[in-house]
């Protein structure tokens, strides 16, 4: 009974405890700027056209088939997304801006599963969380126009929730590395690193077996422990140097775009609120007056605070549970990929595949093969050939396509082979199964041929 009261009072005092708003404000500014830059970069690289406008067929997420490419309007969508990110950075109409950013970014991600990346998912989740946080309470146009919301203190949980999100990312990424291929075979780094020997300075060592193990084990230990070293004040500075070194190294070695930089700026949230406040104040002279950080000693007041806390609490429980759903499926998750996404499995496997679709007229027994590049881009074909849900979706599309061309009583089969983490290629989908009859949600057991380890 006594302990229960202690716990209750601890929770109550935690919920009511305040801290300086500066870390959240810094996070908002950097998040907005980096997102705006990402959108511009995506545009200038020509990826809007290549990844979204050019493909004739897009792999939709279940339930989001209604999400359509808007033709040249897709550019407008990216413009809105980038502009709202800039508004987030300067704190202009913040709640609307971050909501628009979240929705437009999510819409872009929902256009084609092919382009799923964990760091895009991370951005979606973080921007969703930011909708419910008062990140505009200082150093923002909003707070300079409307002094009522100007505050230099917020609830402690409003910063801790972002730390929790980062902890989920790192720890699940670390746990995912604790598997036979990564730890014992040093795969897939054994495949990836030797092709980087042309890189200056460290290149010469990347062909060495011990380096593959050092990177594998080092990566796993880093992911599993870094959050704890960042949380503890005495190790924080050193841990942040490690964060920079680790992510810069991955940026040099792998084509992972903005992800390293997003993680580096995100981990700044672990630094003390007074440090953030000091930094903001020391750069205030360089900022336009509306964006200056003012320590007015007031706490941010909102009658919705508790409601948002409960809502986000449930959301975070969902975030903790979601990566574990693969446990409900038998077999190797790298092979069947059920529960693979949204689980922080980052740079974890090398999977190469080939899928050759056979269309059979079941009455005349006439048969022919499909040229995948008639329908898919090289990038889509690559992703499709290794992911069962893509194969099924594409097979059904092919069935419809050829039926509409006047073929009747069609069956669609696939001869597919996949190589996982350096194993010799193996048959993937059962070539005897007519894919038109397979329902992914209630998969018949013989759809995939199990991995022979």
């Amino acid at each position, binding site marked *: 009974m006594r302990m229960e009261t202690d716990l209750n009072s601890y929770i109550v005092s935690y919920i009511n405890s305040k801290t300086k708003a500066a870390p959240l404000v810094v996070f908002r500014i950097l998040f907005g700027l980096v997102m705006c830059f990402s959108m511009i970069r995506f545009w200038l690289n020509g990826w809007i056209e290549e990844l979204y406008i050019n493909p004739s067929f897009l792999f939709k997420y279940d339930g989001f088939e209604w999400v359509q490419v808007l033709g040249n309007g897709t550019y407008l969508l990216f413009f809105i997304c980038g502009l709202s990110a800039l508004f987030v950075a300067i704190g202009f109409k913040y709640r609307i801006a971050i909501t628009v950013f979240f929705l437009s970014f999510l819409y872009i991600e929902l256009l084609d599963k092919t382009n799923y990346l964990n760091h895009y998912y991370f951005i979606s989740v973080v921007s969703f969380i930011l909708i419910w946080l008062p990140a505009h309470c200082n150093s923002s146009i909003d707070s300079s126009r409307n002094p009522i919301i100007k505050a230099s203190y917020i609830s402690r949980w409003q910063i801790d929730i972002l730390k929790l999100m980062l902890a989920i990312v790192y720890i699940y990424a670390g746990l995912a590395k604790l598997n036979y291929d990564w730890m014992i075979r040093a795969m897939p780094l054994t495949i990836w690193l030797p092709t980087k020997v042309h890189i200056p*300075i*460290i290149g*010469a060592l990347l062909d060495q077996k011990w380096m593959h193990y050092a990177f594998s084990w080092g990566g796993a230990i880093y992911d599993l422990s870094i959050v704890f070293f960042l949380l503890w004040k005495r190790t924080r500075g050193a841990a942040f140097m490690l964060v920079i070194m680790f992510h810069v190294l991955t940026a040099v070695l792998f084509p992972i775009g903005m992800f390293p930089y997003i993680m580096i700026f995100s981990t700044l949230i672990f630094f003390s609120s007074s440090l953030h406040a000091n930094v903001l104040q020391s750069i205030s002279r360089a900022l336009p007056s509306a964006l200056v950080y003012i320590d007015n000693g007031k706490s941010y007041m909102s009658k919705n605070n508790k409601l948002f806390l409960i809502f986000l609490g449930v959301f975070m429980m969902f975030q903790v549970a979601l990566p574990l759903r693969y446990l409900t499926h038998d077999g190797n998750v790298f092979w069947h990929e059920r529960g693979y996404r949204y689980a922080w499995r980052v740079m974890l496997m090398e999977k190469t595949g080939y899928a*050759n679709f056979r269309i059979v007229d079941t009455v005349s027994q006439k048969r022919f093969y499909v040229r995948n590049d008639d329908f898919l881009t090289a990038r889509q074909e690559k992703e499709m050939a290794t992911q069962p849900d893509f194969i099924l979706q594409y097979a059904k599309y092919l069935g419809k396509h050829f039926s509409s061309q006047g073929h009747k009583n069609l069956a669609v089969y696939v001869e597919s*082979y996949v190589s996982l983490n350096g194993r010799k290629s193996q048959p993937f989908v059962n070539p005897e199964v007519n894919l038109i009859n397979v329902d992914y949600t209630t998969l018949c057991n013989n759809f995939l041929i199990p991995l022979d380890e």
Partner: protein
Amino acid sequence: MRSVATNLVICSLVILMSISCGGDDQSSELQDTFNRKAMLQDWSDLMIIPAFDSYLDQVVALRDRKNDFYNGGTLAGLEAMRSAYLSAYREWHAVSIFDIGEAEAVGLRNFTNIFPSNIEEINNNIESSDYNLALPSNFDAQGYPALDYLLYGQGLDDLALLSRLQEENYKTYINDLIDRLYDLTNGVVTNWENGYRDAFVENDGSSATASVDKLVNDFLFYYEKFLRAGKIGIPAGIFSGTPIATSAEIPYADIYSKEFFLLGLSAVEDFFNGVSYDNSTVGTSLKQYLEHIANENQSENIAPLINAQFQSARILASDLNPSLQQQVLDDNSKMLLTYDELQKAVVLMKVDMLQALNIQVDFVDADGD
């Protein structure tokens, strides 16, 4: 605990330092590093450049025999032109794979060997004298397939053909076709000679735009699209359900079609195994690269499996009629058997080889994770 973290950082720094300083004195231990640059050098110096040089010679010879023919107008001149045509067409198979640099930029293959050709389009062009061979719509109205129709396919006896070809419109068209082959090829050769060779070799990294990744993709594209599908699969009806004999390569001088398939297969085998253009040496190759990786990782070496697959396709092809068109009409099942053997190598190369060598198939250099 502070010391633990500090040690961690110091350790990492020490590792980085030792790595950066260790480059020179450790190089003797690092002999087993596979050198992508050496492979690029051998590809360009032993294969690509000599093959293009020799091909250009054949195109020049074709142009010369064509000029001789139009100067003399004799049957012997026609025969000499036809024979130069076949030699150049044969030699084309040694360079078709190398669709990179200038060849890729100008679309060399699209303007050289797209078949079946469009007879109606060719006749229209000749009649109207109004055409632009640089347009993609004219891919199938030029190159060797168009010349196959003009020199072998008009259903005329030699004397009638002799006078037909000397009609002004025909003369202009044939001149234009052969000049175009020459101009495009000459541009590619000049480009290799003037700087592209070094740019190609220097781009020795590993990304979608690195030379190794690009050329291996070109190689696989050639194998899948032009050798497996173009020469065997499409005429055998793999993608249509019913055989299309007329879509075979060189349908008029059709007795050369199997030879051309075998030339394409040889070019593929030579590239894979690093055999120099003049057959005198063996350079650094994909085969060696696969051996190296298998050795390093103690995994199965798939290079022999790939070569065995080429070999069994060759054996099955030996049973085919010299005219693949005829073979499709007589007994298409033999075409299908050859196709199946070619297909098995696709899986070995596109799945196992690409994985082992970590070659990117995605031409969009977008982000991954």
